């Protein structure tokens, strides 16, 4: 069958009518496009609660988008990124995958991710907090969507604190312990606890070394310059943060095996009551079901200001999935809608990245009374803090921080020498 010119123009006019109407405002622009169809291959790791959340949001997306399908490939975290790297190198990556913010920069900077700026709905960025949106930028363009966050608060053993004479804990971010107040609490615990128990443990093991940055941010310091191209850790704030944290070890405020490269996680020490307090993200709350003691949570310490790491994960699309960009953009739009993000975060004890949810608050399914502390703590993160962690060189910087902080914590090297060595390492990493 051959089309005449008139038939072809008529068909084109009918085909473009919905777009023209949408442009004139006859079709609500917020309505999801039903035109995009196809299959999205989505690879992630997750706890049971997180995977249940993903399955739920995928089901609602497929229901709202007939013809669209999302295949969920859940893998263990330990295999996640060696698999993703191998798939990227082999040229057959998934369309979409989940990635921690501190790893995001390596993929975006390595030209492996899809630039979403032309595909996301207009005003899309406005739904997120500035710090969340900054965490998925590379060269001023979004290469992912901030799906959720998480940040450190303090979990404390009520009886251990009460036995040490600590009868109250801060109930708001503004009244959080200063560094010196926190140290005083820790020293009270040191005096009351037997020698084989410790005041607290810090969760900076492995890639969690980025959580050491909380101390730096609390003193209003930086580890990278504002253009992310040079080291900024060798500063008064950097040396103060190193000096304060390295004294945890000789003062026996943390267990000796709580160093950065330790294979024992801080949460384990809290669970077996080796420590009275632990720094932890809200994600660990569902795992505390089996604890045989009463515990609560309070805000992380502050110094010049309140500060916290921007933990959590983004969703990104690979460059190879460029042919499905519209469908993927619709999926990302759906996943970050208010209802979907609330359900996911409440079920998995994670923190939202949407401004409205941060303002209104959420209520965790497990231990809902702890939600306020974690959401409040996350609101202290600044875009200038989260933007540094999105550096394309963050993987190398993590190695530098691990090595240098271990030398200070275990090797006893001084703060000034450590800051200088860390700055040299970071300079080499960003070169």
């Amino acid at each position, binding site marked *: 069958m051959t089309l005449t010119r008139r038939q072809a123009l008529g068909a084109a006019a009918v085909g473009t009518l919905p777009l023209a109407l949408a442009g004139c405002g006859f079709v609500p622009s917020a309505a999801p496009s039903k035109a995009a169809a196809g299959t999205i291959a989505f690879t992630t790791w997750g706890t049971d609660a997180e995977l249940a959340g993903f399955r739920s949001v995928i089901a609602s997306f497929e229901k709202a988008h007939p013809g669209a399908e999302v295949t969920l490939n859940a893998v263990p975290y330990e295999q996640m990124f060696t698999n993703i790297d191998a798939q*990227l190198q082999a040229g057959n990556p998934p369309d979409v995958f989940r990635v921690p913010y501190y790893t995001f920069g390596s993929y975006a900077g390595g030209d492996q991710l899809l630039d979403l700026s032309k595909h996301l709905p207009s005003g899309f960025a406005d739904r997120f907090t500035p710090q969340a949106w900054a965490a998925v930028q590379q060269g001023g363009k979004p290469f992912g969507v901030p799906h959720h966050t998480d940040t450190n608060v303090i979990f404390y053993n009520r009886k251990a604190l009460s036995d040490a004479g600590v009868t109250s804990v801060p109930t708001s971010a503004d009244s959080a312990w200063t560094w010196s107040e926190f140290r005083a609490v820790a020293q009270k615990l040191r005096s009351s606890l037997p020698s084989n128990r410790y005041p607290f443990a810090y969760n900076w093991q492995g890639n969690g070394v980025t959580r050491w940055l909380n101390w730096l941010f609390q003193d209003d310091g930086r580890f990278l310059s504002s253009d992310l191209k040079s080291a900024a850790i060798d500063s008064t704030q950097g040396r103060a943060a190193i000096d304060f944290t390295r004294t945890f070890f000789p003062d026996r405020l943390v267990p*000796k095996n709580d160093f950065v*490269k330790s294979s*024992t996680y801080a949460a384990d*020490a809290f669970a077996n009551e080796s420590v009275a307090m632990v720094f932890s993200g809200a994600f660990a709350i569902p795992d505390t079901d089996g604890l045989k003691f009463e515990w609560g949570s309070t805000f992380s310490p502050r110094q010049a200001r309140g500060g916290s790491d921007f933990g959590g994960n983004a969703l990104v699309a690979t460059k190879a999935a460029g042919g499905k960009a519209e469908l993927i953009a619709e999926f990302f739009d759906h996943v970050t809608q208010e209802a979907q993000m609330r359900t996911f975060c409440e079920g998995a004890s994670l923190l939202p990245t949407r401004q409205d949810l941060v303002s209104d608050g959420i209520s965790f399914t497990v231990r809902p009374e702890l939600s306020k502390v974690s959401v409040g703590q996350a609101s202290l993160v600044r875009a200038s803090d989260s933007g540094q962690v999105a550096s394309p060189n963050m993987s190398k910087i993590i190695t530098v921080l691990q*090595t240098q902080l271990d030398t200070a914590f275990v090797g006893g090297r001084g703060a000034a020498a450590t800051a200088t060595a860390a700055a040299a390492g970071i300079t080499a990493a960003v070169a």
Partner: protein
Amino acid sequence: MTAVAAAPSRRPERRRRHRGDAAAYGFIAPNLGLLALFVVVPLVGTLVLSLQRTNGFGGGVFVGLENYARLFADPLFWRASANTALSTVLVTGLSLGLGLLTALLLNAALPARAVLRSILILPMAVSSVASALIGKLVFDENAGVLNALLQAVGLPAVSWQSGGAPAFASVVLVTLWLRLGFNMLIYLAALQGVGRDLIEAATLDGAGARQRIRYVVVPMLGPATFFLLVIDVVYSFQVFDVVFVLTGGGPQNATDVLVTYAYQNGFVTRDQGYAAAIGVVLLVVAVVFAVVQWNTSRTRDLTE
């Protein structure tokens, strides 16, 4: 004339030999194919990668021998090399010695011999990651079994995780636990092959128990020892999971070995060219060791 007459008689023999060669190559062809696909190709790929600067994404930049030059100036590489060498010497020596000792004991008429053999072989049946996790429960310096036992008998707790030397010892002990069963098993099998007549002859010549072991049994176990030495050394060079799970290479790189250091560079720092260079060095060292051992071992083919 004799030469002319002899020539036709050699042709059928040569044809038969060629047919035999062809059949032999036919039999080994599938293995050679698999070896080429899964060993030679990745090896060549690693060699090429080691000459590049690359984070693994996209094409790398050819830098010649720059990655190898960096190795010489990298103190962490030398630390990991020294750790690898020391753990290889300790694990290989101890697993050979203890393997022989346990094999000699369990070759004798001991009560519950089968049970004891099974207990020693058991770690071979468990994944090394699971074994390392058990090691973590034992060596945790706050809540571990070993420190609890030491303190129960009035001894001080040991810094199994935060002390460099104790952490290294914990890696050696767990690796030894994993390897002992295999060494014992091979020696046990080899002991079955030592003829009773040799032992009887030595006894009649007045050799005592120690002399029989020293001058008869141990030399007769030469091929087994040669096999175990090569396998144990190669295994020690490749130890990864025990270190990764038990200590993560810490504290302060005290337990980092070449493979964990290569992993750190390849998959954490994403300096894949440099990681490949470490892998090539490890391969060269292992091959050199195997060749030297092959050429210097006097007892590898010893039989009655």
